């Protein structure tokens, strides 16, 4: 699948004259585009535990699939351009999401590898809302669920660190952003010393985009190997 991801540092495009403290209507001000259906706000900072160097974070709304109005917003979710799906720490979840199961009704859990660690936990089903987009009944990994405290050795035998806690993950979850979305990072005014921006989804074919969101998330279900099932 082609992935289109452009990180645009608008600061490089802004005429220098706009940065000199003139009126705030000059092209150099740092206002974020007005909210739109396809725009998701992000922030660049050190994350909720302060151990990220310029991490890109956003908020994701997670809802019960059976009751679309029963939702919670998870803040400080890392926008991870190199992974797939949505993964949320169990400690950040308040909704009782239903468990995904095998055909024989065994719960499904996943050992997910990153280059520097792993996440372990059950795969549950949720509706996900990001910007004006929504994907229904998609698999979500719930990381560090105490009900799945026994981590299989096939998951730990890389020797890499467990990223199953807020402290070790450095975020409340992670979400892959490559949904033909475009990340635009805006430098904040110097006084703020923060960078913010947004993710803009391609403003075409919302239905197709929703299918993509669904398909991406489904790769958690079908693409990650090995799946570990627990009896």
């Amino acid at each position, binding site marked *: 699948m082609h992935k289109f991801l452009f990180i645009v540092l608008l600061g490089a495009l802004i005429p220098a004259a706009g940065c000199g403290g003139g009126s705030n209507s000059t092209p150099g001000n740092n206002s974020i585009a007005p909210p739109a259906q396809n725009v998701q706000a992000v922030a660049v900072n050190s994350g909720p535990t302060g*151990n*990220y160097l310029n991490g890109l974070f956003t908020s994701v709304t997670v809802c019960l699939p059976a009751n679309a109005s029963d939702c919670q917003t998870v803040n400080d979710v890392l926008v991870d351009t*190199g*992974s797939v799906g949505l993964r949320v720490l169990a400690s950040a979840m308040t909704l009782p999401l239903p468990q995904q199961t095998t055909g024989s009704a065994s719960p499904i859990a996943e050992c997910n590898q990153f*280059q*520097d660690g792993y996440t372990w936990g059950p795969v549950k089903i949720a509706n996900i809302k990001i910007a004006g987009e929504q994907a229904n009944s998609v698999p979500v990994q719930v990381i560090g669920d105490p009900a799945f405290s026994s981590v299989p050795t*096939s998951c730990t*035998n*890389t020797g*890499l660190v467990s990223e199953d806690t807020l402290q070790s993950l450095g975020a409340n979850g992670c979400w892959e952003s490559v949904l033909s979305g475009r990340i635009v990072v805006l430098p904040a005014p110097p006084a703020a010393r923060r960078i913010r921006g947004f993710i803009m989804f391609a403003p075409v074919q919302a239905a197709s985009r929703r299918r993509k969101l669904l398909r991406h998330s489904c790769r958690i279900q079908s693409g990650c190997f090995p799946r570990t099932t627990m009896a």
Partner: protein
Amino acid sequence: MKGALRISHAQAYDLHEIQAPFGTVVREYVSPASKKVFAVTWQGPRIPNLRQLLGAYFDQFARAAQARRGHGPLNVQLPGLVVQSAGHQRAFAGRAYLPQELPQGVRAEELR
């Protein structure tokens, strides 16, 4: 690792290449003089079982990896052991080698 083994010979080392069933290719570099493995590398969708690959060196690597803070590519440099891990989901690559055991003329960068 229950994978297919392919052996090739180079001037400075023999190469044992194993493709694991989950797709990751593991290469072991063997010194022709000592017949010892001085490096292993991996590339593929999963990071392999490093406990199995590193053997006696696993524990000191794991201690260093666990002690690390922060995120990003892993580069463990210990006296007598280097382990590097990088990549992203479904596309990982890494190498582990014993710097003092590299045959003459072999550079770490060529271990892939």
